[in-house]
């Protein structure tokens, strides 16, 4: 179990490093996804399967997808074109695929060991987390929901494409 932890930690570190070094946005995004997945695996090794699942679903799934959408919407013109071209080059794939392979191997090893490892004594399953969530942290949950709502409203309002004339009017006033 420990070596699984080390492998995925290494993967996480390398992918995070790659995220920062990348010139291209999409590549960085991909590396970021891998980094999140590796952290999910670490959660798994730590006996927090619920957190790992959440990580994969929300973090890697929702937030990263959001990033991709935004990058798509921005279609950064010349840069986007250049990206398409580079995308095609296989060389770029080696980095993420190798890291993905290592993670895959990690996961396979854990699964091979069987559930025993996973459901260790001090595994904190979703039941515990759920009870805690709606026990003492009830106020926190409510707050979190309000935060999300605010984020939703903010995103909607700020994200609106301003009509041409509205934009012009804003310019003149400044």
């Amino acid at each position, binding site marked *: *179990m*420990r070596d699984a*932890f080390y492998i995925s*930690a290494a993967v*996480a*570190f390398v992918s*995070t490093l790659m*995220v*920062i070094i990348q010139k291209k*946005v999409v590549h*960085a995004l991909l590396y*970021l996804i891998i*980094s*999140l997945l590796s*952290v999910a695996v*670490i*959660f798994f*090794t*730590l*006996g*927090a399967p*619920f*957190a790992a699942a*959440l*990580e994969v679903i929300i*973090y890697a799934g*929702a*937030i990263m997808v*959001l*990033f991709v959408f*935004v*990058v798509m919407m*921005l279609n*950064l013109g010349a840069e986007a074109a250049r990206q398409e071209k580079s995308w095609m080059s296989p060389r770029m794939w080696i980095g993420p695929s190798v890291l993905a392979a290592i993670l895959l191997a990690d996961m396979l090893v854990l699964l091979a060991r069987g559930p*025993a*490892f996973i459901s*260790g*004594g*001090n595994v*904190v399953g979703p039941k*515990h*987390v759920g*009870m*805690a*969530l709606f026990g003492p*942290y009830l106020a*926190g949950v409510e707050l*979190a*929901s309000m*935060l*999300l709502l*605010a*984020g*939703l409203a*903010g*995103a909607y*309002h*700020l*994200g609106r*494409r301003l009509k041409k004339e509205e934009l012009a009017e804003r310019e003149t006033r400044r």
Partner: protein
Amino acid sequence: MIFSVPMEEGLVLAWVLFVTGLVGVIVRRDIIFILMSIEIMLNAAGLAFVIAGARWAQPDGQVMFIFIMAMAAAEVSVGLALVLQLYYRRKTLDVDSASGMKG
């Protein structure tokens, strides 16, 4: 003890990830990259919480992780909306162009 993953190593990892994220925010000029680095930092924080929770087998760690994730989601959505606005206005994603609040 099955999960003999020592907490210190976990925290070191969290720390490393956090610092990498921080470096990312400082170094990169493209606003998208900055947002991504912030995500890394948030994730690192969440990792630290979960590690601590696992260490004492308490659900609190994961609960905090969930809160962080909720916050991160809200933050990203608003952040990206602002990025869109910035892009429409300035036609660039360079964060230094938005240095109006100066002096």
